Structure formats: C-alpha cells, structure tokens
C-alpha cells in the first residue's frame, strides 16, 4: 500500500523537474491571475508545461487544490494563441453539476481575458435542437458526462465532431475508474484516440492510494506523467465524545444529536454527512426537534427535487445556512465556499471517502480541515478509530475492481456500429487498449459481437432479425436506422430502480422516491421524506400523491445502495484495534469496558484470526463469526455456510449479517468449525446456490438493460392503467433453463460475484484465517456478539424460503 504522506508531499522524480522554468502562463491568463492577486500554483504550471510538450498527465491534488484550472490552462493558452477549429477540448466529469459549475467558471475566465472560445455543456438537460447543432457545429470546449461522450461517438458524424480534438480532460477520475461508467468512458476514449490520434489526455484526481492504477486507466500507450500538488495542511479529525453512552446497535446516532446540535451552533457553517438517504431524513428530523435557536439547517440528497437541491446549494453558497445534512451527493466538486466543520455521522467506511468529505471543510489548502466523526454504535466507533489510525499511519485504501463489464462492451459494440461499419479485428485491437479490457480474450469478444448481432443463441432463430449485417469486405454494419435509434434511446450504464415523483395534491413536486418503497406502502400510511412527514393518498401514473401528515413514527424509505462495507484497509485496522491493547487506550471508557469483558468471557481475535463463538439460546444453537469483511461478504458467507451445515446435518434455521459479524442459528451444534469455513466453500457451493438466487436475477436485470437485451422503462410506462408486468425474471428463467452458457448469464454471474457477493474479498479472508480459527464454546451470548444478535429477526428472506412463507400464510387446502 502507498503511504498517504508520500502522496501529499513527494513529487515523482522525472522530467517534470526540468519543466518548471520553461513555461509560463499565456499573457492574457497571467494578467487575469494577477488581477485577482493569485499566484499560479506549481502543479498548474507543471501541467501546462508537460502538455505543451505533448504529454498526457495525471494531476493529483487534494480538494481545493486548483487542479481543474491546471487541466484547462493548456487549452486556454492554445486557444488564445492559435484560435479554434472545431472541438478542441472535451471535459468529462461524473456529475452534470460539475459541468455546469465549470462552464460558469471558464466562461468568466474567457470573458475577462478576451480569449475567443465557445464553451458549452452537453448533458441530459441540453435541449434537442442544441444537441443537434452541437453535432454539426461543435463548440471549442465541450463539458459533458461519460454517457454523453459515448452517445456523441455513436453518430455517423463522430469523425467530424472529434477529428480536431486536442485535449480530453477527465475530472474526478478516481470516481470513475473501476465503475461501469468508467468502463464506458475508457471504451469511448479508445474511439476518440482512433478518431483524433495524438491528442492529450488529462486526468484530475483527488489523493488516491494507487495513482499508478489511475495512470494506466488514462494511458493510451504514449505514457502519462504524474503531477502532484504540494500537500495541504493535515486534517484535524476527532471522534465525538457524546454525553450519553454509545449504543450497541442501530444507525441513527440519536444519542449524539444534542452534541451534534451544539457543535453546529458553535461554528459558522457545517456540513453534516450521513451514509444513506434514510439516515439523512432521520437526522434532519431529530435536529429540528431540538432546534431551539432556529438555526438554518437544510437537507440535501439525491432524491429531492432539483429545484429544492439548487435552492439549498445557493443558500449555502450565500452563507445564509448554518448546516446542511447531506449524503454523498455533496461529496464531489461543486464549490461551496467556507465550511468550518464537517460532521460525519456513522462510520466513514473508507479512508479515501473520509478524506474527500473532510476536504469539503476549509477548502483552502493551507488551512487544516476540521472534522468530527459521530459513530452511531460501538462497532462504528471502532471503525472510526480504525480510519483515524489508517490516516495517522498514512495507509490509504486499495483500488477497486479492474475487469470491465461485458454488458458495457456490448453497448460499445452497438455504439460503434451505429456510427458506421466496423472491422471486428480492428475493433478488438482498439478495445483491448482500454485498460479495463486489456485482458479480454478474443473468444469472449466474438461472443459479445455475436450477441449484439443476433442475440447470441445456439439456435440460429433470429437470422432474419439481425442487428448487425456482414458486408463483403468483412466489416459489420448496423442493419437499419431503427436499431441505431433504439440504441440511443437505451444507452447508458446506470440502471436504477424505477422512481415515482412525490407530488402534493396541489401539484407541487417534492422529489422522487424508489417505486418499490411506495408500492410497499398502503394508502394512508405515513413516511418521512424531504424533511417532512407525508401520508400516501394514492399513486397516479408516475406520481405518488401525498399530503402533509403528523406522525411521530413515520416509515423511512430504505434506498437501494448508498451503504458501503468498510474497505479491506479499514477492516484491517479495526482488527488491529481488537488485537493490540495499546491501540485501545484512546477509546471511551464504556467501549473499553465492553472489550475487557469480552476478553474475560470469551476472547478478542488476533489480527489474522477468525473468532467463532457458539452458544445455546432459546432451544437453538447459535454460531457467531467475526470476519469484519462487510455485510455483502458476510451474507454470501452465511448462504454458503448454511448450505454446508445442511449437509453436515446441523439443521440450520437462518442467519443474519452486519458489517462486522455473522450469526447463524441451527437445531444442532456444528462440531467441526474448521471444515465449515474451508476455502472449498467458494468452489463447491457458490455456483449451485447462485443459479437459484434472486441476487442473480437482480444483476441479470441490470446487465440485460445495459447490454440492450431489453428496453429501459421510460417514465410514464404505467400510463395505460392495465399494466401486464413482463419482468426480466421470466426471461432469466427461460434463458437459464434452455441456454445456461449464454454470454449475458456469464455477465450477470460476474457482476453478482464482483459487486454483490464480494467473493474475492471472501476468498482472501478464508485463505487468511486458514488454521487460525479461534473457537469459543460459550454458555451464552458474548458482549461482542450482542450487536449482531440484536438484529436477529430483521434479516432478509432467502428466495428458497418463499414457498415456506406462502405455506405459512395459510389458506384452505
């Protein structure tokens, strides 16, 4: 692992040291800097120099380090000196808001320096006519998102649009690399390289653990220079010592709300980060409950109506708010001016994530950021301490997955075909230049192309309906314009649950909420949303009609995603806290006592041990294991272990997992724990179990949508009122039974294993604990096991148990 301090302070050796003196700002820009009393920073000048010499660069700077300006200096200089002819610079960012923000900033620079350059954004909000005009007459600088780049490259006029491209800037590249959107962008970048060879790529990144991985994400073969900003002041982070004892379980941090309120009151402005939208709603309600000083406290998350979010954002920028309770929607970029304090409620889950959030405070490199961590329960407190230890010792998180998605590649093949005939050999050579696909085998590539062409089924049933047609010269072309049109309607790699607008009876839209949450509500039931309590009146087409209600205990929407497991790095530090008594000295008394009693009654595991406790309770045998690998990995482990227990005759009845532990209950005691957590678990049982699980259906739905097997459900699809639900589950069942080797099933399996099941993490854990099982047979539940035991009874139902549930529901035979 890479040291944090290295990243902050050390400049990579190499050609850049000799660049420093050779380049200065173009005159106009230099005056503009001077008029503001600003000095260009060293990394900005270095970037300009490197690009002037024709290099691509990766610029690494902490938030507030001026890295975006570094990315644009060369483009401004080049446009100022040589003028533009067609699209000169393409700026790609993960959020629309960043593009809009950047367009505004750049526009000001251009206006005030008199550089002649047309700057435009292109996002989902850009009007149709404007988009059409951008294709025939592109601006000098286009600011856009990965999805829009892929779409633009799918037009027949892609060569005209991108033919004169000089610079591609990828902002917040660390957010994109390793995701499906990043895969899509990497593939689109290979197209841009083919269309305009020799242009420069600039990646802008926050401080990351493994810059070499980002560098290779950016590298088109010509090499990428890494440029680091000077380090900022070291952040000042404390864990809140709440007046009340910290609870064993729960995620609401209710015990700490009065202290959080006081912390907000004592500073100018604060950002209060939570991990999920439901936590945001709860914390916001709780703060207002005790807001005796009537402080301006607002709420911000991705489900709120756009107008409301913008209102909060501008109120914050004007300084008229004291605090905003927010989810990760505020993690990135958009500049908010002075924030005095960042409060993180709940465990931060990762070092990089924590640093990014902390970076929002201060936002000036030379001032230390102030942050307050508020754990909601005891394990979260340990996790917060683990994050502090990791930051203190300068150990950052490792990199995420690297294998590119099969479904994303299928979309790229169709996008390429939509822009014109392509030669499969050439396309394959281009695709493997995209780092996520570097190890893609030709066989799999050919299966994907076959899938795009005919559906890829063993029966040649669809020859007549081919989407790609072979030409005499060996190239493939799209069969008809309708196919290209359908592709453009359905492109994109984000598949979200359908959402409904939450609308008041007077027509005012409050925001959007996942359809499945609303479908689970009965008319009249109340729920907390957008900082208020509402009662459901009914659903009309794509709207959930609501009216204000009074209810002290409303339901809170549970949103898909948004909660991450602790990173491997953080989990490692957490295990160190348990293993090394010295590290526990800083913990609050009640938490230390809790761990001391655990040592007396059971044991604390060594850093590479797996503690497994067994005890009887209520006529059943319980087994609690503490792998600390996060809930997704634990759920997979629970599935696999219960299957094996079934075969061992232990009669497993159920299990529940949280981020830290896994509890399984059964009729009989398992004697041989070593065999139960053997590595062969992942070989023998996984495929078998996965094939029948609803997880695979879920990933199949996503994969089938991204790969273009089924069309996206566009808003308003329920308009007919007589909706026959024809779900992807039906397609999945048929495909699995009749064509189990289909490439999309393989894609769904890979997706499920990588993202939902964390099988690789599980495998590493099983290897680590081999021969290091610390087994304790106890009379009763131990202090460490209490939190997970409190969750028993709230677990998800496995799909295999549905029949039992239906039976239990009763009815007359």
């Amino acid at each position, binding site marked *: 692992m890479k040291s944090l301090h290295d990243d902050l302070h050390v400049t990579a050796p190499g050609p850049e040291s000799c660049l420093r003196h050779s380049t200065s700002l173009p005159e106009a820009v230099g005056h503009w800097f001077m008029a503001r009393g600003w000095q260009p920073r060293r990394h900005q000048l270095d970037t300009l120099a490197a690009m002037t010499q024709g290099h691509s660069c990766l610029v690494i700077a902490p938030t507030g380090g001026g890295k975006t300006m570094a990315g644009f200096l060369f483009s401004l200089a080049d446009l100022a000196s040589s003028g533009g002819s067609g699209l000169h610079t393409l700026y790609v960012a993960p959020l629309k808001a960043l593009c809009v923000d950047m367009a505004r900033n750049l526009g000001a620079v251009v206006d005030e320096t008199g550089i002649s350059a047309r700057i435009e954004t292109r996002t989902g909000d850009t009007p149709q006519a404007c988009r059409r005009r951008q294709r025939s007459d592109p601006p000098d600088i286009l600011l856009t998102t990965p999805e829009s780049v892929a779409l633009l490259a799918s037009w027949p006029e892609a060569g005209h649009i991108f033919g004169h491209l000089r610079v591609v800037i990828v902002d917040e590249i660390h957010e994109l690399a390793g995701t499906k959107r990043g895969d899509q962008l990497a593939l689109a970048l290979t197209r841009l390289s083919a269309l305009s060879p020799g242009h420069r790529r600039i990646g802008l990144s926050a401080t990351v653990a493994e810059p070499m991985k980002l560098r290779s994400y950016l590298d088109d073969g010509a090499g990428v220079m890494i440029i680091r900003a000077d380090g900022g002041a070291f952040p000042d982070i404390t864990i809140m010592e709440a007046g009340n004892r910290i609870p064993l379980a729960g995620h609401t941090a209710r015990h700490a709300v009065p202290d959080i309120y006081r912390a907000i009151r004592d500073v100018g402005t604060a950002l209060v980060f939570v991990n999920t939208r439901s936590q945001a709603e709860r914390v916001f309600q709780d703060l207002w409950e005790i807001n005796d000083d009537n402080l301006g406290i607002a709420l911000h998350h991705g489900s709120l109506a756009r107008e409301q979010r913008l209102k909060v954002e501008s109120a914050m920028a004007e300084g008229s708010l004291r605090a905003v309770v927010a989810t990760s929607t505020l993690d990135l970029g958009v500049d908010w001016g002075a924030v005095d304090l960042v409060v993180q409620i709940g465990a931060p889950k990762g070092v990089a994530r924590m640093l990014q959030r902390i970076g929002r405070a201060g936002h000036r490199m030379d001032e230390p950021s102030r942050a307050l961590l508020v754990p909601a329960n005891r394990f979260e407190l340990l996790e917060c301490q683990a994050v502090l230890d990791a930051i203190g010792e300068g150990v950052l998180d490792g990199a995420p997955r690297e294998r590119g998605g099969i479904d994303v590649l299928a979309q790229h093949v169709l996008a390429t075909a939509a822009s014109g005939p392509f030669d499969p050999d050439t396309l394959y050579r281009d695709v493997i230049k995209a780092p996520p696909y570097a190890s893609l085998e030709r066989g799999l590539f050919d299966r994907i192309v076959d899938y795009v062409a005919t559906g890829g089924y063993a029966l040649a049933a669809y020859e007549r309906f081919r989407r790609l047609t072979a030409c005499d010269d060996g190239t493939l072309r799209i069969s008809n314009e309708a196919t290209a049109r359908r592709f453009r309607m359905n492109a994109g790699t984000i598949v979200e649950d359908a959402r409904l607008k939450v609308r008041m009876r007077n027509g005012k839209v409050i925001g959007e909420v996942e359809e499945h949450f609303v479908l689970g509500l009965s008319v009249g039931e109340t729920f907390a949303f957008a900082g208020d309590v509402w009662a459901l009146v*009914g659903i009309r087409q794509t709207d959930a009609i609501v009216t204000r209600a009074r209810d002290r205990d409303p339901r809170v929407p549970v949103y898909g995603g948004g909660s991450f497991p602790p990173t491997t790095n953080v989990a490692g530090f957490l295990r160190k806290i348990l293993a090394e008594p010295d590290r526990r000295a800083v913990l609050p008394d009640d938490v230390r006592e809790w761990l001391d009693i655990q040592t007396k009654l059971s044991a604390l595991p060594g850093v590479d041990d797996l503690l497994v406790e067994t005890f009887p309770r209520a006529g059943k045998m319980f087994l609690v294991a503490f792998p600390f690998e996060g809930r997704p990995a634990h759920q997979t482990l629970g599935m696999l272990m219960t299957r094996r227990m079934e075969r061992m005759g232990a009669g497993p009845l159920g299990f529940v997992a949280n981020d830290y532990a896994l509890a399984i209950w059964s009729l009989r005691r398992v004697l041989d724990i070593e065999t139960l957590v053997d590595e062969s678990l992942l070989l023998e049982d996984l495929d078998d179990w996965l094939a029948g699980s609803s997880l695979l259906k879920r990933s199949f739905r996503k994969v089938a949508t991204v790969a273009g097997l089924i069309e996206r459900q566009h808003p308003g699809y329920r308009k007919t*009122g007589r909706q026959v639900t*024809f779900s992807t589950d039906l*397609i999945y069942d048929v495909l699995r039974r009749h064509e189990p080797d289909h490439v999309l099933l393989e894609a769904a399996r890979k997706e499920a294993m990588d993202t939902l099941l964390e099988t690789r993490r599980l495998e590493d854990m099983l290897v680590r604990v081999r021969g290091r099982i610390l087994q304790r047979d106890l009379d009763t539940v131990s202090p460490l096991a209490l939190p997970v035991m409190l969750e028993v009874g709230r677990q998800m*139902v496995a799909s295999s148990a549905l029949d039992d549930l*239906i039976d239990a529901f009763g009815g007359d035979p």
Partner: protein
Amino acid sequence: MIVNGTALQPDPTGVLHWAEARLIAVADLHLGKGKAFARHGSLLPPHDTNATIRRLAEAITRLEPECVVCLGDSFHDREAVSGLDQASLAALEDLARGRDWIWIAGNHDPAPPAMLSGRAMEAFTNGGLTFRHEPSCAMVAGEVSGHLHPSAVIAPKGTRIRRRCFASDGRRVILPAFGAYAGGLDVHERAFSGLFPAGFDVWLVGGREMRRIRGNRLVRPAWIES
C-alpha cells in the same frame, strides 16, 4: 374449487384440471412471443415457445386428460403460427394425438391455426361449464376464461410475494396465463371490476400445493384507485 356446482382442481402449474370429465383447460400460452419481440428489435431468448410447450407436456403426461381446451391467445400473433419451428409443431401434434384438442379463439389469435390438429371454436360448453377466452360482462354461471392474466400479492411476515393466480367466486373462474413470457395483472386492477360482485378467492400458482386464499387477505397495490 367448485364452479357452478362442478368440482375443479387448480394445478400448481397453472392448468385447470377437471378430473371427472378428464379435461384440462389452459389459458394464454402466447406461443411465439419471443420471436414477436425479436421482429421489433428486442432479441429475447427464443426458447419461450419451447419452454411453454414442454411445461404443458409435463402437465398432460401427469394428468392424462382426454380433452385439452386452450382458452385463446395461444399464439402471440398471426405470424406466430406460421413462424412455429418444426420441433414445436411436432411436439404440439404429439400432444394432440388421441385427444380432443380445442383451440378457443383469442384477441391475439382470432383465426384458428389451420395447420394444427384440433377443433377451432369461439366457445365450448360441457356440462355446467362454458369455456371462452374473455370473461363476459354479463354474469354467466360456469364460465371458464383467461385473457386477463390474473396475479395477486400476499404479505406473509412483512414481505411481499407476487404470483400468478386463479381467481374465482364459485360462479366463474379466470385462469392465470401459462406462457413463459406472459406477465401478470393484479386482480385489483380495473379490468377485473364487476366480474366478481360478491368477492372472490385466489389460488397462487408456482408453489408446492394449491390453497384457497380469500380476496380480502390480499395486498391491494397502492397504484390502484379504489
């Protein structure tokens, strides 16, 4: 299940078995639906027709009926009959051999499949039962129909389970859609209103055994106006 005094056995596969008359009824096979989607650009797995016929064959082998009544929408569209592959044609012919096979006309397949064995009819009456595609607005005692693809949601222990189902009030019965790609329509939707004026029961398919569940124990989805 008793319909108009006749004892019927809803089967977990979704076919309706009238053991006494050695007859089964099956609704909305939608053969050829995958291919119909492919014609419009969605290259769905082409195995749905095969899958549906195979499931039907299993039920026929197990229940050994002398008469099979397909309640309409057996074919997804006009092209579906002509587009049927040889294997499917042969499988359907095998099933029909030695049996009275009745193709009731549906809105998707108003014309009878001339190339296949069996009788094509608008409706078919046997004893106290009348088999037709679409439930009629007028109350016909003993009506056995399909067309609406009924499905229902139950909520055991706080979860939600949605399944296709039979729906009956003792006077008429509406069968679930049998086709592999045929979806479901919640029994509370407007399309069902007026069909069961005095309430109804459902039998969920796809489970281990069939149980009658009273309509008032079902979850009424919030999007359906009352």
